[in-house]
């Protein structure tokens, strides 16, 4: 793809603005007119019926129904089939109530009161009430919790049911708390004895579980009592785990499935030729990252970090590893899909001279560093590391790529002091605070660059409880600048989510980008045209 064509595509898909399109085409000296956004297909009214078959790349025999263990696309979208949450990110990216009708915060954003929707029934006929919500959250709390959602619920110091409301008291103010409760780990399940009943897989959601064979197939039937009258259009859903991407592609082209996730970028142009298949992309918050341990030599010197940031050709990485299906990053994890993206921040680009300048500032004439990589981080991570090595060589930096085993990568390589520098993937978070407090705050468990920046951490706490929009935006923009210019993480590219669907499938014009496949809520948002 020529650069011009590439930019046109990006603009049509809404990943870059008109202004950016004009600026960047001017930069490459092309005289163009802005392509028309008209002519996109009409979006019909939803229709009920049909059996929707899905092929998902994730899913394993060892998957459990316990919501604390959800970690892959199969468990996430399967949970969205049968469960509801207090809040949800809508297909237009806004936060809307799901089981919560409304919510309000105290002035210090420490006490949050959620008013629950009335008359919602679980699949087993029990009416959902505030006690179920409390039990569902308590399932992830406490010292004995092995739940992956523990860091999200840890700041909750107290929660109690009060009539048809649930009151959360937080240790510190958090203006984004309603976003946090949309996390896929925390579905509202029926309370039972001391805990919740996750074993019987009963929920309030759009579909009722019929059979579940982990790692093979899960079958759902529409919940006739579903409280959202304008959602859940399929009669039946069959979810299949199809780990092999070629098998998934075959199944889609032969019409055996209607949706495949995680298309193979390398063969996407061939799949596009098939007339019965539509390729759809969303650009969300998922990004590749290369964290440096800022507590270790030589990464404790910001000049070295800057030298490395300027030694990578992000455009080349985007074109080679992602074949253009993404956007370049600016060394901070906030994407254009987030509310407070700092669009005025100067974009870092490949500049060996600048890189040499920073090396000199650090008192070095040349640098040799180890970069650990494995495809467990993201598909193509090892290739990306080798590419980086080539780019950096021009700046006098010698990167020694170490290929690590996929097994145990997240425990033994990433986020440990065993390795100074490694490849990593983040799916991103819907809010700035959630992302920063998960991976950039000084005391965060997953602060994978071990970055402890005083001013950043002060701003993080202040912005969290700031309810004034404008002030909040300024704070987050400043924090993005700090992470980009002084942080320990390189964020070279944001990747798009790409899925293929049968041309019989329809959905609203906009798709959610918080997760792949319309925020993984295809089950209730899509229909057969």
């Amino acid at each position, binding site marked *: 793809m020529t650069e011009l064509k590439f930019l046109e595509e990006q603009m049509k898909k809404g990943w870059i603005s008109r202004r950016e399109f004009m600026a960047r085409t001017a930069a490459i000296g092309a005289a163009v007119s802005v392509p028309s956004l008209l002519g996109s297909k009409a979006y019909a009214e939803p229709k009920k019926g049909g059996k929707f078959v899905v092929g998902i790349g994730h899913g394993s025999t060892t*998957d459990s129904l316990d919501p604390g263990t959800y*970690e892959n696309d199969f468990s996430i979208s399967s949970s969205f089939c049968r469960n509801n949450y207090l809040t949800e990110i809508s297909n237009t990216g806004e936060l809307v109530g799901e089981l919560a009708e409304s919510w309000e915060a105290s002035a210090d954003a420490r006490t949050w009161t959620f008013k629950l929707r009335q008359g919602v029934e679980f699949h087993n006929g029990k009416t959902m009430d505030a006690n179920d919500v409390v039990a569902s959250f308590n399932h992830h709390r406490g010292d004995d919790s092995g739940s992956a959602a*523990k860091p999200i619920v840890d700041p909750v110091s107290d929660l109690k049911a009060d009539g048809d409301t649930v009151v959360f008291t937080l240790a510190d103010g958090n203006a984004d708390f309603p976003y946090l409760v949309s996390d896929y780990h925390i579905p509202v399940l029926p309370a039972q004895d001391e805990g919740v009943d996750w074993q019987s897989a009963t929920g309030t959601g759009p579909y009722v579980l019929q059979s579940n064979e982990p790692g093979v197939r899960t079958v759902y039937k529409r919940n006739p009592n579903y409280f959202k009258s304008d959602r859940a259009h399929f009669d039946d859903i069959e979810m299949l785990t199809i780990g092999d991407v070629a098998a998934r592609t075959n*199944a889609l082209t032969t019409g*055996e499935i209607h949706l495949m996730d995680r298309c193979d970028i390398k063969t996407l142009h061939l799949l596009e030729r098939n007339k019965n298949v539509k390729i759809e992309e969303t650009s969300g918050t998922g990004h590749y990252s290369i964290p440096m341990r800022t507590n270790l030599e030589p990464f404790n010197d910001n000049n070295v970090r800057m030298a490395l940031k300027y030694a990578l050709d992000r455009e080349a990485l985007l074109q080679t590893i992602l074949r253009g299906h993404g956007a370049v990053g600016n060394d901070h994890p906030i994407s254009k899909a987030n509310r407070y993206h700092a669009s005025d921040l100067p974009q870092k680009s490949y500049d060996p001279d600048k890189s040499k300048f920073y090396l000199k500032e650090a008192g070095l004439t040349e640098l040799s560093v180890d970069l650990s990589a494995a495809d467990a981080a993201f598909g193509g991570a090892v290739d990306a590391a080798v590419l980086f090595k080539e780019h950096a060589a021009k700046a006098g930096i010698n990167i020694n790529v170490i290929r690590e085993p996929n097994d145990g990568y997240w425990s033994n390589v990433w986020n440990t002091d065993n390795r100074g520098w490694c490849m990593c993937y983040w799916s991103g978070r819907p809010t700035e605070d959630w992302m920063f407090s998960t991976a950039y705050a000084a005391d965060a*468990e997953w602060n994978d660059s071990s970055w402890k920046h005083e001013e950043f951490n002060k701003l993080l706490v202040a912005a969290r409880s700031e309810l004034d929009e404008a002030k909040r935006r300024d704070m987050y923009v400043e924090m993005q600048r700090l992470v980009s210019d002084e942080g320990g993480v390189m964020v070279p590219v944001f990747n798009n989510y790409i899925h293929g669907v049968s041309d019989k499938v329809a959905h609203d014009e906009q798709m959610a980008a918080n997760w792949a496949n319309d925020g993984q809520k295809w089950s209730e948002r899509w229909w057969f045209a």
Partner: protein
Amino acid sequence: MIAQRLGLGLLTLFVVTLIIFLGVEALPGNAAEAILGQSATPETVAALERQMGLDLPPHERYVKWLGGIFKGDFGVSIANSREISDLIGVRFANTIFLAVMAAVIAVPLALILGILAALYRNSYYDRSVNIVTLSSISFPEFFVAYILILFLAVTLGWFPSLANIGPETPFWERVYRCILPALTLTLVVVAHMMRMTRAAIINLLASPYIEMANLKGMSRSHVILRHALPNAWAPIVNVIVINLAYLIVGVVVVEVVFVYPGLGQLIVDSVRTRDIPVVQACSLIFAATYVLLNLTADILSIVTNPRLLHPR
């Protein structure tokens, strides 16, 4: 003699479990870390290890597991607390179904091709059968599978590319959905059996008693079927059995390509998540399959050979 063989078989099984256990223990990471993935923190890993009983030292876990096996209890999966017998039951039945289906096609086919090849030795037929079967065994399984999918599923649309079967799938529907994986396996195993049949028969054709039969004026096909084949059974049966064992334990690649819910996929998943009880149970089944099938081969070669059946 059979009792002695069975005893040795049991010893083999025991050694296999020990090796597998030590092997999985030696891999980096454990089930708790594998389940939590990127979201693992030391705190949550420790809590999950306690829930799964992984905080016990390895030898205690092994002895506990072995004790369970003697009582016929395979235990529960560490990763999702399901009964392993439930987990394996359906999958094992699927694996056996596919293996039997492939064997029903492959074994008669290989025998017929092999006998005909011996009958028309060095003819164009003999050479072309050799070339075709040897090429199909030389390609990697997934390649053969993709070629079949390309022509029979994508281009012609005769068969489904997914072997998507469940417990409720009716028998003939099951057969229809499994045709492509069964054909792939057939192409992979036929060459070995067919060449062995041909070689074993040709080997005997040089014997004096065959010459005698020829001199009596018998037809060539009569000589081969009535005189040579009965004496050639022992090596042929051995090769057939090895290939049958392969159809049960070695089909993980085919399972992945056709998304067939068999044991191979289960053991791969379990190794990845370090779910030792499941890995152990699967390996026990695989090892037992080998031991039993080899025993069958020995018995069959004795039965087909009167000299071994009535030792002096």
